[in-house]
């Protein structure tokens, strides 16, 4: 199966605090057609994200496609709140890299 890596298709892949106890993951596209094609493949799901992070699927919360923003979103609960003892990503902004592993079935038209 031919695939394209998510980094070739998306404009932005990022993570950030959503409150002090949650981290939100985002994949944002800047081309409506690409976004719709990615969405239609069904390749990005809560399960696919869980696999990329090697965590149980139930830890990937609130997975959703957000059409107005051409975005895909999911949340992870922090093991410990931001900035406390032993915590190492106060802004939650370096938790997205495993998403780079996402491969999307893609046949060039």
């Amino acid at each position, binding site marked *: 199966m031919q695939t394209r890596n998510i980094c070739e298709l998306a404009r*932005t892949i990022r993570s*950030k*605090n*959503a*409150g*002090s*106890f*949650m981290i*939100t993951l*985002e994949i*944002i596209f*800047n081309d409506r057609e690409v976004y719709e094609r990615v969405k239609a493949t069904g390749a990005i799901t809560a399960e696919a994200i869980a696999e*990329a*992070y*090697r*965590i149980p699927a139930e830890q990937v*919360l*609130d997975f*959703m496609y*957000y059409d*107005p*923003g*051409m*975005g895909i*979103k999911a*949340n*992870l*609960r922090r*093991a*410990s*709140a*931001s*900035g*406390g*003892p*032993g915590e*190492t*990503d*106060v*802004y939650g902004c*370096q*938790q997205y*890299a*495993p998403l780079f*592993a996402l491969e999307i079935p893609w046949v060039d038209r």
Partner: protein
Amino acid sequence: MDEVSVLVSTGNLGDNIIEEGTFYEGCKRRIDCFAADAGSADVGPTFLGSDLPHNPIEWERHDLEIMLIEARKRGVPMIVGSCSTTGTDSTVDRFAQLIREIAAEHHLEPFKMASIYSQVDRGELRKRVAAGRCEPLGAPYELDDQVIDQTTNVTASMGVEQLIEALRQGADVIMAGRACDDAVLAAYPIHLGFPIGISLHMGKAAECASLVCWPQMVKESIIATVTQEYFSIEPMHPAQAATPHSVAAHSMYERTNPFVQGVPGGILDMHASRFEAATDRICRVYDSAFVPSEDGSYKVKLEGAGEVGYRVYNLVGIRDTRAIRYLDKICEDTRNKVAEIIGPERAGDYQLYLHPYGHNAIMREYEPVSDTQTHEVAIVIEVISDDIDLASTVAKCAKFRFFYMSYPGQMNSSGGSVALITDEPLYPKNKCYRWTVDHLLALDDPLDPAIFRYEYEIVGN
């Protein structure tokens, strides 16, 4: 008034300075209100917990100065929420004092300033908890006396209601404690009678100033305009555009859900929001709605942080790839040996964390890569204790055990076999704090005087 325009120049007043070029570009237009959010919980719990400033005061002064002078020239309101990052009572005083100094320095005509305090007395909070008025929001546990005992400072985040009260009292300048960032921008339009849902969504979209536009720039000004039908965003930087996509995409930023946002007294519902291009640089958003809570309740967010102890760091580097192969084992050996030497009777008096940078320090339990490929790593040794001497001893002990690490296939014989960045432990200026309170507090009256307190004064001449 058919429309109201708010100049928004920063998403976090004082954490760096407003770019003056686009600020004064915006000032050439009709501006009805200058508003800025100055707060963030993103910076971590240290500054709320210690009630110490996060930002250099010269940056805060810069932004307050340019905003105050332009607001007073026009006789329009200036609203700043969540003063100096945390919005404690002392931060409101700090900003109010800056306003007085700037007014005196520029000989501004007299104006009325409101200081709104929203720090919550812990005794008051205990009463509210006992009365069953609190519930968890982000924190996965109930608020109780024990959590409050572990908390040094707590704030309540005000909505538009508390800001509008100050506008009704004729305040020209408002320095507010902790506030919802959207409320800071939406208060004046709602005060004038513009739709709540449209105004709140404007506040939510515009609260980070130029970050809502594309390409992304920081600290550049935008004009956010509210009408009866829609709100619009227009960047003042000529290279930026507010597009339906950029504005919608910003709805995802730092939020768990882009369709729904909880606000005091209800929700902002954006399921039906329509994002339309008015021009290639101006986006309009229609049909966002405020839905009052079904049970009529009015709840504000409580934010609290508490002290954990002194924190001491050591940093050791390893370039030996044969050691790196056994990094997990080396760290475990270190932990075990430290526990043995410090002794079980003191095990509860300190916390030791080893952060192996180059391996899994940043993502820990979410790190999918187990097989480290790097040729060098750094281990940050973090120790926390109420007793600073014990913290130093434990940090030194961990460093020493790394010196004498042993692993299969070791080529280095012994002693001093990690690279030190400095020969002394590292002591942060502040103690270690943690988030303790992330809960909701239900109020019978949004202007509950035990939670929100007002001071008014005439400033100038």
